[in-house]
């Protein structure tokens, strides 16, 4: 079992090494990185390339570790008992399986994506420590132990909103997806739009990386935003010449709404455009 990237996902060399290490050693891998660098995508692509089932567990601020294992529905049971339902005699009827249980039960080695683990409470990862390490847990209500038939490939993404506990990190591999350089970016775009015009890409890249370099910008545009913007440029059939436009009056790139996502950034950009326009006029 080896992950080599797929036709729709460009994986860098270091990412492949990290993922393969996690697969071989059956340890979880934590993926961090700027928003929009394809952290969640990675899990889906790993599943695709290994032809494995993907089980996704989205974490919210209210998610508890127990919910990933199983939940015991006491309220329904209480109601059933008052109605005299026969079901009430077997406690198993009121235990609903969590994502981890599903993953452990799977016949073929699945990919388990724990998405945005940092959204949960600070203690959340600690509560899953043993379960992810041993890949087993105990169901108190029925007294059975659930053990993984095939240790799932666990991919955990984090947006760095909370620090993860050391004990948890020690058991995982770690990869930080850095923002792709122009070469990698070109490959990524090619995967998404194979028939895009070369000159359009070049000009669009220039603008894109320029915007990312603007000091003080609140939200830097990311890969997914570039992809969206290129799509818009293609559907509107914008010519590369317009992007190359050095006319100071049109310094704001066309369809910039796809790249700049808050009004402060748009204002900042307009102000900068205004300043450079004035400078140009002075030169003339």
């Amino acid at each position: 079992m080896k992950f080599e990237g797929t036709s729709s996902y460009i994986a860098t060399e270091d990412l492949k090494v990290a993922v393969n290490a996690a697969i071989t050693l059956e340890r979880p891998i934590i993926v961090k990185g700027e928003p929009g660098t394809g952290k969640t995508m990675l899990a889906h692509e790993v599943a695709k390339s290994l032809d494995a089932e993907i089980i996704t567990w989205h974490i919210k601020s209210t998610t508890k570790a127990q919910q990933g294992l199983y939940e015991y529905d006491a309220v329904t049971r209480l109601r059933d008992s008052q109605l005299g339902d026969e079901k009430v005699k077997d406690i198993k009827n009121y235990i609903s399986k969590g994502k981890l249980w599903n993953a452990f039960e799977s016949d073929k080695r699945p990919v388990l994506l724990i998405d945005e683990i940092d959204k949960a409470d600070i203690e959340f990862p600690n509560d899953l420590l043993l379960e992810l390490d041993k890949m087993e847990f105990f169901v108190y209500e029925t007294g059975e132990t659930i053990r993984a038939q095939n240790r799932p490939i666990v991919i955990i993404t984090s947006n760095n909103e909370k620090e993860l506990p050391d004990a948890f990190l020690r058991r995982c591999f770690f990869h930080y997806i850095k923002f792709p350089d122009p070469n990698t970016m070109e490959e990524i775009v090619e995967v998404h739009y194979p028939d895009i015009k070369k000159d359009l890409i070049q000009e669009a890249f220039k603008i894109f990386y320029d915007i990312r370099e603007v000091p003080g910008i609140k939200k830097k545009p990311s890969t997914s935003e570039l992809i969206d913007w290129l799509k818009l440029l293609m559907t509107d059939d914008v010519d590369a010449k317009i992007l190359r436009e050095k006319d100071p009056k049109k310094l704001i790139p066309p369809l910039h709404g796809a790249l700049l996502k808050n009004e402060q950034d748009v204002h900042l950009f307009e102000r900068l455009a205004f300043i450079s326009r004035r400078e140009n006029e002075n030169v003339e």
Partner: protein
Amino acid sequence: MFINFFFDLKQASLPVSLKEYLMLMEAMNKRVVDSFNVNDFYYLSRSALVKDERYLDKFDRVFGHSFKGLENPEGETTKEIPEEWLKLMGQKYLTDEEKKMIESLGGWDKLMETLKQRLEEQKKRHQGGSKWIGTGGTSPFGAYGYNPEGIRIGQKEGKNKKAVKVWDKREFSNLDGDVELGTRNIKIALRRLRKFAREGAETELDLDNTIKSTAHKGYIDVKMMPERRNKIKVLLFFDVGGSMDAHVKICEELFSAARTEFKHMEYFYYHNCLYDAVWKDNNRRYNDNIKTWDVLHTYPSDYKVIFVGDAEMSPYEITYPGGSVEFWNEESGETWLTRMLNVYENAIWLNPIPERYWDRIASTSIIKQIFSDRMFPLTIEGIDQAMRELNK
């Protein structure tokens, strides 16, 4: 063989543990990567040993240091580059004119020999110029170009990335915890300071208790409990004006991060040292100030106190009554600081000046002493330590 590397990492105070080292060994044992490839080993060890992007840069530096002898750019290149490939690249990128020039030099074999010879002669790294293998000019090797960090043939942009050692590029330098500060990072650092408790209005259903009580009583008896909240309470004191002007940005960031992070937070301003009054609005500091005694009496001792200031002043401003540069203070700054520390057990000082200069500034040493060494640099690392200290 890698034990030394592991201890180098430890020495550089990277948080690596034996478990992680064993994990790396296991991965090597199971042949996750080809062990003869340094780059793959670098990626693997990075992924197994580093668990936070803050440490990536430090890791790169240690790796570069530990495995310095392993890859010698000058020595190995002659062996590494297959001649066939060179030829191919040459034919692809050379003009007819250049090819003729090669012929005049005695053909490919001769040329390769000279190249090897030159590489051996050339002991030092070389940048620019025309005699050695460099860029352009009179050297017959000009067309290929020689990268000072390794070898790059043909100048096809970035396709042979391996030429430059990956870890030498230090791509993660701006993620180092000692360097970068932004509100987001400060927030994460501040989150160390948390103590959850259920207090206040009962708004959540306490399921366990409800079931228990229901079973006990025989009818449905709903029990509620208060929501879990961070109950940490913080007093922030900011030094403003004078030498602090240079640190305004970082203080703003700390302030905005603290405000979103702590529900119970009060802030005050002071100048240089704490005296008998503080204020909340810098424009009205002389008319509308708050007596320090009032602060001490208003906020109970379970508040955590954070002082932010460069602690850079004349020592008299701390130790003598009347030492303040702005007004006549009846009691010395030291007296006031000690009073503060007597009330609030958990107090620390954050200093925007890098730690290595502290010993050279007399006033900084005095304050550090008053705070019994609980002074931390205003970096992510420092805030992190400070929050641990406050949590004690």
